[in-house]
């Protein structure tokens, strides 16, 4: 049950940073924190105390962990890294054109 609690705390921290912080880089950090929470939960959920799901030559392993959530998590990590890089690039360009990365100040610029 601890993994559920830690997942909720991490996810809510990330959501708070995404909603409340006005600095755009902190928003990206919040998004990544939410992603990390989901990955942590998927991996910890599928851990039943077995071995890593890799066969060993000449040795019979009776209890494996589930390989499917681990493969899915690998996919998710790569996608998360790509989206974070793209978001940070857009923020860099925004800073170059408007001189600020604060959401409130950007709204004032819009007025």
């Amino acid at each position: 049950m601890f993994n559920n609690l830690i997942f909720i705390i991490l996810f809510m921290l990330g959501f708070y940073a995404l909603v409340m912080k006005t600095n755009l880089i902190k928003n990206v950090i919040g998004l990544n924190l939410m992603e990390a929470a989901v990955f942590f939960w998927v991996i910890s959920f599928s851990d039943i105390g077995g071995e890593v799901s890799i066969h060993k030559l000449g040795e019979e392993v009776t209890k494996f962990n589930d390989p499917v959530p681990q493969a899915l998590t690998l996919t998710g990590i790569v996608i998360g890294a790509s989206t974070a890089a793209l978001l940070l690039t857009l923020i860099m360009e925004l800073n170059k054109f408007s001189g600020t990365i604060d959401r409130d100040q950007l709204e004032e610029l819009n007025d």
Partner: protein
Amino acid sequence: MEIPTETQPEVEILNKLMKKTLISGVLIGVAFALYHNFALMPEYQGLNEGLSNYILKSGLNDTGSLNLITAVLYDYRAFDSLGESTVIFGAVSGIVLILSRKMLPVSSKGLSFIVKRTLGIMTPFIALFGFYVITHGHLTPGGGFQGGVILAAISIIFSIVYGSAFDYRRYSPQTKTALETGGALTFLGLGLAGILMEGAFLHNLGFLTAETGTLISAGSIPYINIGVGFKVGAGLAIIFYSMIQKTFEEDF
């Protein structure tokens, strides 16, 4: 009579406080709902039935890959991995498009002589480890994505220790682009070979299968790993160099 155009600072502070309290209340409510949802969820059944059970039972016979996670990634769900590498390709293309400039990436002159010599001794071993992780993806933990990140780390360490012009002169962006495209084309070519030889896109190539546990086994999985490794390594290096190349434009 004048209408006040700006709100009072006290009112603004109060507004902010109210907003914060409201959001915190909503977050706590959502957290509570999530916690109750977890209490309602059934126990984990994944290994007793269905897909996971099938992969654990017959994954080794189907693919010849000792590492079942790699078997899932590059055999059962290889189409999904192709989409994943397309996402990396899209991210790299977008970043290069946004940050495209004709400047040379000079932002530092490097660290001291001792650090440079030490890294010069260590670099071949880091590269060897990266290639090991890539090529043994079907036998031990690792694979194309993980090894590719190690290869990209070499490029990043070069730019920190030797100054950012060094890596640019050694491996030009054209080389990296060629490596990335080559990796993607390797993946696609193996998929088309799967159509021609076995009748399905990205089907594992049976005639490449050798004795289980050797380096050249598991059909086309090692070759896909090599392609993905070069693609990821070159892609991440391109992203890094696009991001650092904005500040300076003087000669080197």
